[in-house]
């Protein structure tokens, strides 16, 4: 496990292959969500969907430190975490369309995508549902003594749920390698984070629980990568839990269809300019000379094509047969 080099390093903090992969993953998330934003309007996608667009650098900056043997738990806004942790694009798309070939056979849907073989222990439609689970996975990591870690993704809103506080304290008590990532995108549904987080400081509150905590710019892949790298190394080394609070924004409403009346008219437009992780990433890697536009442009095309295939396949794929309604309730009956 590597300690992240200082951000002023003259050479790239990540190997070329890793930079390319990080970009590809962020781009995949972005286009996955942008396409869903369009497709949802056709009415073909069941349920309600929470898009991750705008927050890609967090999922990827974190998951670039993880292997399949590390765990994550996610939230209702989980597509980005799933993709960053290696869930299959096509399998996810099938799932979101409710198809038999979906990662969860269409039984879970957007809010319950999971792939335990990838260490992805599930998106979760209960705010605060995940962090206790992450502590449990961290117990497993600790007991295995192999330096693996468990990461709980959550939002600013989730940071106020009792289950989350319990998980944080318990992780400190048990000194397990659990990492809490609170993506502060400014809102929980229609309520501002500075209203609902009494202290207006999620990282500071985490420090009050007795663990190291950092805040960072969530739209800067390198900032997330480096901050999480430090905290993750601390956890892998047996130092116990830590918290990261990436400050970030979401490009779309809380769920698709939300008119966002609580946000200033031009807020999203402005933030798309100033807080776009893809633009920032390109500016940095091209500016520093780590990568060239010609390295990245083909990725953009490949990603778009991949998403297009995924959507087209998903649209025409069959649902699970009705008999599936009553299977998978138990492992043994």
């Amino acid at each position, binding site marked *: 496990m590597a300690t992240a080099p200082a951000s002023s390093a003259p050479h790239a903090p990540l190997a070329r292959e890793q930079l390319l992969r990080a970009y590809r993953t962020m781009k995949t998330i972005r286009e996955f969500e942008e396409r869903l934003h369009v497709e949802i309007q056709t009415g073909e996608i069941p349920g309600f969907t929470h898009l991750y667009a705008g927050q890609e650098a967090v999922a990827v900056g974190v998951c670039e430190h993880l292997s399949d043997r590390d765990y994550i738990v996610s939230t209702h806004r989980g597509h980005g975490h799933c993709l960053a942790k290696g869930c299959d694009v096509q399998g996810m798309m099938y799932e979101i369309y*409710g198809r038999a070939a979906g990662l969860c056979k269409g*039984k879970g*849907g957007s809010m319950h995508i999971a792939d335990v073989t990838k260490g992805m222990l599930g998106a979760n439609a209960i705010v605060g549902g995940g962090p206790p689970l992450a502590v449990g996975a961290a117990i497993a990591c600790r007991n295995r003594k192999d330096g693996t870690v468990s990461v709980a993704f959550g939002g600013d809103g989730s940071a106020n749920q009792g289950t989350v506080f319990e998980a944080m304290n318990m992780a400190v008590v048990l000194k397990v390698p659990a990492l809490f990532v609170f993506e502060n995108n400014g809102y929980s*549904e229609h309520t501002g984070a500075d209203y609902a987080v009494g202290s207006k400081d999620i990282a500071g509150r985490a420090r009050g629980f007795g663990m190291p905590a950092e805040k960072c710019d969530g739209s800067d892949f390198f900032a997330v990568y480096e901050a999480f790298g430090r905290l993750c190394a601390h956890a892998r080394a047996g130092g116990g839990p830590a918290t990261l609070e990436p400050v970030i924004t979401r490009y779309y409403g809380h769920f698709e269809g939300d008119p966002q009346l609580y946000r200033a008219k031009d807020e999203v437009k402005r933030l798309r300019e100033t807080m776009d992780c893809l633009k920032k990433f390109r500016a940095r890697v091209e500016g520093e000379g780590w990568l060239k536009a010609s390295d990245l442009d083909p990725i953009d095309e490949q990603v778009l094509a991949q998403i297009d295939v995924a959507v087209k396949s998903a649209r025409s794929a069959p649902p699970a047969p009705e008999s599936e*309604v009553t299977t998978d309730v138990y492992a043994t009956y």
Partner: protein
Amino acid sequence: MAQMTMRDAINAALHLEMARDPRVIVLGEDVSGGAGGTSGNREASGGIFGVTKGLWPLYGDERVIDTPISESAIVGAAAGAALAGLRPVAELMFADFVGVCMDQIFNQAAKFRYMFGGKSSCPVVIRAAMGAGMNMGAQHSQTIYPFITAVPGIKVVVPSNAYDAKGLMLQALRDDDPVMFFEHKALYPRKGEVPDGDYTIPFGEAALVREGEHVTVVALARMVPFAEKAIDLLAKEGITCDLIDPRTTSPLDEETILESVENTGRLVVVDESPPRCSVASDIAGIVASKGFHALKAPIVQVTAPHAPVPFARELERAYVPGPQKIETAIRQVLKD
């Protein structure tokens, strides 16, 4: 009288009672929406389903309280405020969230009066949107009223239409006991005739939605319109049913059910919950104990299967009891 959605009918009840009784407060996540937002639009939603719309502009932060995502604190604060003389209405955005605040419902609010020897009351109303039908998946689609019906000390309301919802909500707001008020998401947009003014519907009085001779059908919430469909279809064949909507599962109007079974001798109970320890089984058990001699045939329970609610459209549709399953059940109960 006006045609009104169930959503608006409940909203109208909240408006009426907040105007009448200054002790009524509303609290929950996004009940106004927009607190801490950047638009200056302080009532940005009026509840995620719009049920608390228009209250914040009238009553402000003091009586319309947006909260963090902290359901235990929401329900607990409502119960504590009730002990302290207010009449709070707590909103659980989705009924499925009872899991994170169940203690405050079942060990606190529901038990205070008894544990305190009858010397206090806890007039809190807990509203929660429930039910399947919108492909929201296993954690956002449940009808968890059986859990609460099982709990002594709290009353449970499961309206099936706009008219009842308004009258039952006004009753809930004036009741001196804790009340859990389940609003079926799929019924929110359904319209019905709703009087403008003030009226209450007492708890424990079922509605006789259809009158018939051959079968007693008891159905709850969204199952009522589904049962109506099935019954109206069968009526064309000369098969007629009593359709009973209990409206409250606790207290339960046993009498109306037992009287009807006395006449028909046959019972179908329709409940959107899975079968085990459900209200369907509860009513079946009551009739098997207290109405046994009138029964001419096995009781038929129409429920969801013993499985979580699946996400995919086709699977959810197969999961939720619908008019066709009810029709089949009625035919079946007539066969024996």
